[in-house]
C-alpha cells in the first residue's frame, strides 16, 4: 500500500507506522508549522500531553478522531488561539506566541467554527476584512487589497454575491464567503476547523473540492479538522488520527487507513475497501448484527 505515497513528498512526511508518533520529538528543520511536545489544557482539564505534530509543507493535512479526542484543540494550538501549558508551537522556526500577531496573520490563516457575520454586512465588505493584517492606519485600502479581495471572491465563486448581505445567504454560500475572507489574508498556511459542519452533502463536497483546489493549484498548505473519515481519506494527502490526545497514526490515507486502525481509534468494526471513484480507502461500518455478535463473543471470551 505504501506504493501510493506521493512522489513529491519530502522525507519528513513519510508516514510513521510505528503508532507512537507522539513520542517522536525530533525538531522540525523543513516544515513551516509544527507542535513540539505540547501539553494542551483548558483551565485544569488536560486534553493532550507531550504531543508533537509536524504539518508537512504543501500538504492537505486532515486531523481525524472521535469526539473530544483533542483535534480541534490541536488546531487551536497550531493557530495560537490556545497557548500550550508546556512545549511550543513553531512557525518558521520561531515560537508562534513570540511573533507579532499581524505577522503571524500574514503567514497562517484560520477559519474557526464560530464566526459571527456582523449585522447588515455585505459579502464584499466581509471578504475585505480579511485584508486587515496587511493594512495600517495610513494604508487602509490599497489597489492591491481591492485586487486580492476580487480574486478571493472569484476563486470561491462568490464574486457575483459581492453586493448581497451575508445574512441572506444559504449556509453553503456563507461558508464560501468565510473561506474567501481567509483567502484574502493571502497566507501560505490555512487552518480550517470543521469547515463542512452543518452543510448538506452537496455543499460539503463543494467546500472540500474548493480546499483541494486551493491545495493543488496554489500550493497552499491546508490543515483541516474533519468529522467524516471517508471525506478525510478521499481529500487528505496527509492524515493524522488522534485518540485521547495521542497520535495513533499519521501518513497518507492509503497507507494508514485500515480496519484495525478504525477499530483502534473509533472503536468501530468495519471493512476498508477501495473507493470505487478515487481508489482511496473507504470505510464501511460492519452490519449491526455482525457488530453485536462480535461484542457478545468478546465478552464471553473474557
Amino acid at each position: 500500500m505504501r506504493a501510493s505515497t506521493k512522489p513529491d513528498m519530502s522525507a519528513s512526511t513519510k508516514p510513521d507506522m510505528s503508532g507512537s508518533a507522539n513520542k517522536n520529538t525530533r525538531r522540525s528543520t523543513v516544515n513551516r508549522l509544527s507542535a513540539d511536545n505540547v501539553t494542551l489544557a483548558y483551565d485544569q482539564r488536560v486534553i493532550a500531553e507531550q504531543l508533537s505534530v509536524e504539518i508537512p509543507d504543501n500538504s492537505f493535512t486532515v486531523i481525524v478522531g472521535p469526539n473530544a479526542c483533542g483535534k480541534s484543540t490541536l488546531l487551536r494550538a497550531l493557530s495560537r488561539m490556545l497557548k500550550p501549558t508546556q512545549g511550543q508551537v513553531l512557525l518558521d522556526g520561531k515560537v508562534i506566541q513570540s511573533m507579532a500577531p499581524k505577522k503571524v496573520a500574514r503567514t497562517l490563516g484560520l477559519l474557526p467554527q464560530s464566526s459571527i457575520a456582523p449585522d447588515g454586512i455585505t459579502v464584499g465588505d466581509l471578504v475585505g476584512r480579511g485584508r486587515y493584517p496587511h493594512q495600517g492606519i495610513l494604508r487602509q485600502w490599497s489597489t492591491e487589497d481591492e485586487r486580492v479581495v476580487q480574486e478571493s471572491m472569484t476563486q470561491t465563486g462568490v464574486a457575483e454575491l459581492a453586493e448581497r448581505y451575508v445574512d441572506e445567504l444559504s449556509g453553503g454560500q456563507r461558508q464560501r464567503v468565510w473561506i474567501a475572507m481567509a483567502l484574502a489574508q493571502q497566507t501560505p498556511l490555512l487552518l480550517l476547523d470543521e469547515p463542512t459542519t452543518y452543510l448538506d452533502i452537496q455543499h460539503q463536497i463543494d467546500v472540500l473540492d474548493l480546499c483541494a483546489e486551493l491545495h493543488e493549484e496554489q500550493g497552499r498548505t491546508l490543515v483541516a479538522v474533519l468529522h467524516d473519515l471517508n471525506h478525510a481519506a478521499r481529500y487528505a494527502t496527509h492524515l493524522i488520527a488522534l485518540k485521547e490526545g495521542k497520535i495513533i497514526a499519521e501518513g497518507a490515507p492509503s497507507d494508514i487507513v485500515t480496519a484495525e486502525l478504525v477499530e483502534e481509534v473509533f472503536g468501530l468494526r468495519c471493512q476498508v475497501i477501495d473507493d470505487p471513484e478515487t481508489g482511496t480507502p473507504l470505510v464501511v461500518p460492519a452490519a449491526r448484527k455482525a457488530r453485536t455478535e462480535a461484542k457478545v463473543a468478546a465478552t464471553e471470551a473474557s
Partner: protein
Amino acid sequence: MKTNRAIRTLGGLSVRLDVRAATVVALLLAAALAASVVLIGTGDFPIPAGDVLKTLMGNGNAGQEFIVNELRLPRVCVALLVGAALGLSGALFQAISRNPLGSPDVLGLGQGATAGALTMIVLFSGSSAQITVGALVGGLATGLAIYLLAWKQGVHGYRLVLVGIGVSAVVTAGNGYLLTRSTLTEATQAVVWMTGSLSGRDWAQVWPLLWLCAVLVPLVLANGRGLRMMEMGDDVSNALGVRVERVRMLLLVAAVLLTATATAAAGPISFVALTAPQLARRLTRSPGPNLLPSLVMGAALMVVADWISQKVFGADQLPVGVVTGVLGGVYLLWLLVTERKAGRI
C-alpha cells in the same frame, strides 16, 4: 449599496472613507452646534441667535458677554462633552458586549457613580468638588468590579451584561440605604444630583472633561479598526492579527473613564449611552462600532434634550436627565418591539 470610497496618494497611502457615515457625522455635528447656539440664546434673558454668534466671536455688549460666556457657554460645553463621552462609551460597551443592552446605564456604572456621590453627600456633607470626585471614584470602582467579576480568560458579551446587571442591583440597594440615612436637605440635593442636571455648570466642570476627551477620543479611534474586526468573534479577529484581549481591556478602561467623568460632571444622565449608538447606526446603515457617529449623536442628543427641558418647562425647572430618560425609555421600548418583530428576542 456601496458607499466606501478609497482615497489614495502616490506614496502608497490610502484612506478608506465611508461617504454615508462621513455625511452623517458632518450633519450631526452641524445640528449639534446649531442647537448649541439656540440653547445659549434660550433662558430668562432670550438672546437672538445672531447676537449669540456675534458675542461668541467677541463682538457682543458687556451684558450679553457675561450671560453667554460665563453662564450659558460652559453649560452648553458640558452638555456637548457629556453627550459625546456618553455616546462614545455607549458605542464601545455595546460593541464589546455585542449587545445593544450592554450600555453603561444597564451595567450599573451610573449607579456606581451615584453611590460615590451619595457617600460624599450623606456621610461627609461634601462640597460639590468632593461630590464630583466621589462620583468619579464610584464609577471607576464599579467598572473595575464588573471587569474582575466578568473576567474568565477574557471578558465576553453576555457575562459582562449579566454581571453588570447584578452589580447594578447591589449598588442600587446601597444607594437606597444611603438615602434613608440622609437628612431632608441632603436627600433633596442627592435626588437632584441623581436625576442628572446641567444647571449651574461652569468652566470648572468643562476643563477636566475636555482634557479627558482630548486624550481618550484619539486613543479610542485609533483602536477602532481592531474593534471592528472583533465584531466577527474573538477567534476570527485573533486569526486576523488583532490583539483581542489588549484592545478590549484598553477600550473598556477608556469607556469606564468616559462614563465616570461624564457622570461626575452632570449626574447619571440616563439613556444617552444606550440610544446614541443605535440611532447613529440606523443613520449610517453601516456595520461596525460607528464610534465617531455615536459620539456626535450623543452630543447632539444631549444639547437638544437640554433645550427641550428649558424650552418646555423653563430654565432649571426640569433636570435634563428627565428628558433623556423619557426619550430614551420610549426609544428602548420601540427597540424591543421591533427586535421582537424581527425575531431576534
